[in-house]
């Protein structure tokens, strides 16, 4: 059913991952490989388990008492649900950007510096300053905020806030960045900026983006997975999924027959 999934150099690999909320199954036996060099998009109608599956990849589901994950998820060949796995370290390696921009109600500088500080990534103020500048530059926000780093992060516009959140994730030097519908709260211009940014970040980090917009998936991703009712229906090259889907359900979805 799935092509391109068993290459040995995958950054993250899931095998038969199911996620339950109490007795309710939200994700059903999903096996997928995520590569560093690509942007991977998860598409599918809302409620099909995309966010749930994404949150399983950095164990954010641990914070929901009723959530239970089965199956195997590996990062660089190591099971992230094994008991010796340090969740704090895992989340530093697998960063996340949320649907609604959620900058801390602190200064722009503090927003970026927080992660490096708790992980001890910088020795002294100068190194920290350098990390903050580099992260903001990578997120394409530096020129807009360099003169007001001490202003509150919440005073920025929605699009700027989301780029701040991306910069914040980048600052801890993650290997994977998970984005859950990062543009759904933004206007088209801000959305275009984020999409450009994702394209610039491609190759440096393995990026997984959940989106409900098929155009967005087509624009930013090289691999696309189509989810439906908790199952992954089809996974492959983005161009193949959109021009030549193998599954009937995929075809129905991308031609707009439901979703």
């Amino acid at each position, binding site marked *: 059913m799935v092509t391109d999934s068993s290459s040995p150099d995958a950054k993250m690999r899931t095998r038969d991952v199911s996620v339950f909320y109490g007795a309710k199954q939200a994700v059903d036996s999903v096996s997928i490989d995520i590569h560093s060099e690509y942007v991977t998009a998860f598409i599918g109608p809302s409620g099909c388990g995309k966010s749930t599956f994404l949150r399983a990849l*950095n164990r*954010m589901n641990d*914070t929901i*008492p009723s959530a239970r994950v089965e199956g195997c998820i590996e990062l660089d060949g190591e099971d992230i649900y094994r008991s010796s796995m340090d969740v*704090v*370290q*895992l*989340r*530093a390696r697998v*960063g*996340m950007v*949320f649907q*609604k921009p*959620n*900058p*801390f*109600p*602190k200064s722009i500088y503090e927003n970026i510096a*927080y*992660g490096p500080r*708790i*992980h001890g990534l910088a020795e002294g103020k100068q190194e920290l300053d350098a990390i903050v500048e580099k992260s903001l530059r990578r997120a394409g926000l530096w020129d807009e905020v360099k003169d007001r780093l001490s202003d*509150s992060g919440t005073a920025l516009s929605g699009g700027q806030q989301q780029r701040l*959140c991306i910069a*914040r*994730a980048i600052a*801890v030097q993650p290997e994977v960045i998970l984005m859950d519908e990062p543009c759904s709260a933004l206007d088209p211009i801000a959305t275009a900026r984020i999409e450009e940014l994702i394209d610039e970040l491609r190759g440096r980090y393995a990026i997984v983006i959940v989106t409900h917009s098929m155009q967005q998936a087509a624009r930013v991703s090289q691999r696309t997975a189509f989810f439906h009712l908790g199952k992954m229906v089809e996974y492959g090259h983005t161009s193949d999924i959109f021009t030549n889907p193998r599954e009937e359900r995929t075809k129905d979805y991308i031609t707009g027959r439901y979703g």
Partner: protein
Amino acid sequence: MSEVATTRTPAFEARLKKRYAAERRFRLAGLGAILFSVAVLVFLLGTMTFNGIGGFQRATLSVPVDFDQVGLSLPPGVSDTGAVSRALEGQGLPDLVQFSVERALGKQAAAELNSDAWRLVAEQVAEDPALLQGTHTFDLPVTENFASALAGDGHAELQPLARQLAAQEKLERSFDAGFLTRSDATDPQQVGIWGALKGSILTMIVTLALAFPIGVLAALYLEEYAPRNRWTDLIEVSINNLAAVPSIIFGLLGLALFLGVFPHMRSAPLIGGMTLALMTMPVIVIAGRNAIKAVPPSIRDGAMALGASPVQVVFHHVLPLALPGILTGTIIGMARALGETAPLLMIGMRAFVATPPDGFTNPATVLPVQIFLWSDEIDRGFVERTSAAIIVLLLFLLLMNGVAIYLRNKFEKKW
């Protein structure tokens, strides 16, 4: 076209008018409520100030004392007020003062001099020993009866003399700074509020030091760590009920619990503070839990996704964001504790305490209990002193709340 016209029909305009009228009525009602509260507050503060201002004054006789007449001297090395008083008492200072009044203002006036008046002279000498040479004029307190006579309240036999001395400007009411530095006494001319104020300050320190950290930690634990089960539900209900328990019950608890363990600490601010902390803690826990609940989950998620540990999430993000709300709860709880009388009566803080407490374990009384005790006295002097003590209590309350509000705003701005 008829659809456009619906907003222009008379019926629609009548509805619109009604809506505006309802809005106006509502606004007026709100304004009325606020005006009423302000009026009550102004009336309360007005009468308090009007009655209490007299409590900050006392009647004094202006008396020249000629020290050269008897030649008093201080033993070398004595400078402490108590020691000076004792030394001068032994050398006959009380008689000298009494005699000076008799010579300057007559026998009848001397009989109405407050028996403690010489202590005031001794205090001033202790500050400035050079006074023991030459003649100096002192403002000396009179008896309670004479003070009442001056105010035109009873003691008709003394009123002519009082009027006569007042006309000569030998007898007058003046600001009594000593009210703020003395402690309880049996004579309203000699009482002060400092003992009770200090007792209140010490008690509040104990209450805050216990209730704030314990309340905040309990709130954090219940919100952030405790599993949701029957036990935590039970604890939650208990805490909510605790906040509603009548305060005198806490006094009984303090009596049985704390005085059972420290029986020799009756009336101590430490015990009073611990008792009030029991009462204040649930208020802080409830306010704290609500403030913590109000922190948006997205902030927690954001911090957690960066790899912050649960403790880091709590102390770097949740607690700072919840602090203004926690402080609001603390203000309410502490204000209630400061005004509390009943539980402190239970643990013996109603004793007559004539010296300010030196520490947390000395016998003490607190402002509201002092007010309660004085209000029980019938002397006119005590009535005024009671109002003055209420003003001191209100000012202390204002100061405490001011500090808390300042802190709250400071933390709010930072975020």
